[in-house]
């Protein structure tokens, strides 16, 4: 099959490639390089896995570990990322615990929850807490939000609203009921 003249000629040409050799002295160092790589692999294998994982950032693809590596660039990046993750998870956990404890308290004093420091609590949270603190007055599922204005008059805060508020939510001194155009509530013992 391959004994014809062109095939013989071709095989003779191909055999010429046997003369292509690497530079002189190349094989003198070849086995040393191979053994160095093997030793590096063996020493790397002796390092615990977790430490190898941290040291990946400072390691070349084929070479040995160049430094202990735990605090290498890759290790720092990983440590920072892990810290941020732990902080985030911890924050979420504590936030959920705080929310639960507030929910469990149920009848928080209105003044402490909202009116004690009106500027510190958002209107929506105030309304929810208000509803939770007075379940007999308001159904929490039907909470409605009304814009109110808090102003300082003398040393006492004053809460007022231009919109009609539901009857019973605020029992204003001297007011006969809901539906009026303006409401005003004074806090503290300041005279009206």
């Amino acid at each position, binding site marked *: 099959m391959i004994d014809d003249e062109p095939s013989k000629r071709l095989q003779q040409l191909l055999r010429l490639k046997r*003369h292509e050799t690497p530079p002189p002295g190349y094989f003198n160092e070849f086995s040393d390089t191979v053994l160095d790589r093997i030793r590096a692999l063996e020493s790397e294998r002796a390092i615990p896995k977790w430490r190898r994982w941290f040291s990946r950032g400072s390691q070349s693809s084929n070479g040995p570990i160049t430094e202990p590596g735990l605090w290498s660039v890759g290790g720092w990046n990983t440590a920072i990322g892990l810290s941020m993750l732990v902080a985030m998870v911890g924050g979420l956990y504590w936030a959920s615990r705080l929310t639960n404890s507030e929910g469990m308290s149920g009848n928080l004093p209105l003044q402490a929850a909202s009116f004690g420091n009106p500027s510190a609590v958002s209107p929506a949270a105030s309304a929810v807490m208000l509803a939770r603190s007075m379940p007999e007055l308001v159904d929490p599922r039907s909470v409605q939000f009304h814009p109110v204005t808090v102003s300082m008059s003398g040393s006492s805060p004053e809460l007022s609203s231009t919109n009609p508020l539901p009857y019973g939510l605020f029992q204003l001194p001297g007011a006969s009921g809901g539906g009026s155009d303006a409401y005003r509530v004074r806090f503290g013992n300041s005279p009206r």
Partner: protein
Amino acid sequence: MDPIAESTESTESTVLARTAPNAEDASEVGHCVRRAQAGDLAAYDQLVHQFQERIYGLCYHMTSHHEDANDLAQDTFVKAWQALKSFKGNSSFYTWIYRIAVNTCLNHLKLRRNRTPHLSLNDLDLQPENHPDLVALVSDKTPRREANLAELQRRLNEAILKLSDDHRSVVTLHDIQGLPHDQIAKILGVNPGTVRSRLFYAHQQLQGSLADWMK
């Protein structure tokens, strides 16, 4: 006598003597393998020394690139060390490490398929230019007497790089490295008939690519 035939026969005997281990070598290799399997790096060093030229040659002829061949030959020996404990001796160590080298080269070629082939012949030792048989080859018998050896080498490598990976493997192992069909079949894990078939088609393609040099 045809200078081409003369030159290739003289080199063939040398290369075959290098590639085919005799019984004494085989027993020595077996001894080194057992010691290396027990973790003896010095024994493995002997194995590397014994096979480095052949493995490098295989990698070089598969890639036509000196640096790639260097990396692949090193990878082959490192992989062989890592897998040495799994070597049961069902085949010869020679066949086993050749199989690792071929697979390493084929994987490399698959990964680098889109890379422009780079011939690094200038990086290699060009001693063959001074080889009297080769000088005779390029000056007496070729249709292009003025052509030089570098041109022939370039054309040869280009033609080989055009072959598929499977065809290049059999051409490298048989025509360049001088391995017999049955040994190539063991290395590649195919039938000897498949080896012959691949060689036939590879030769046809090469004859087309090297038509100028075939006359």
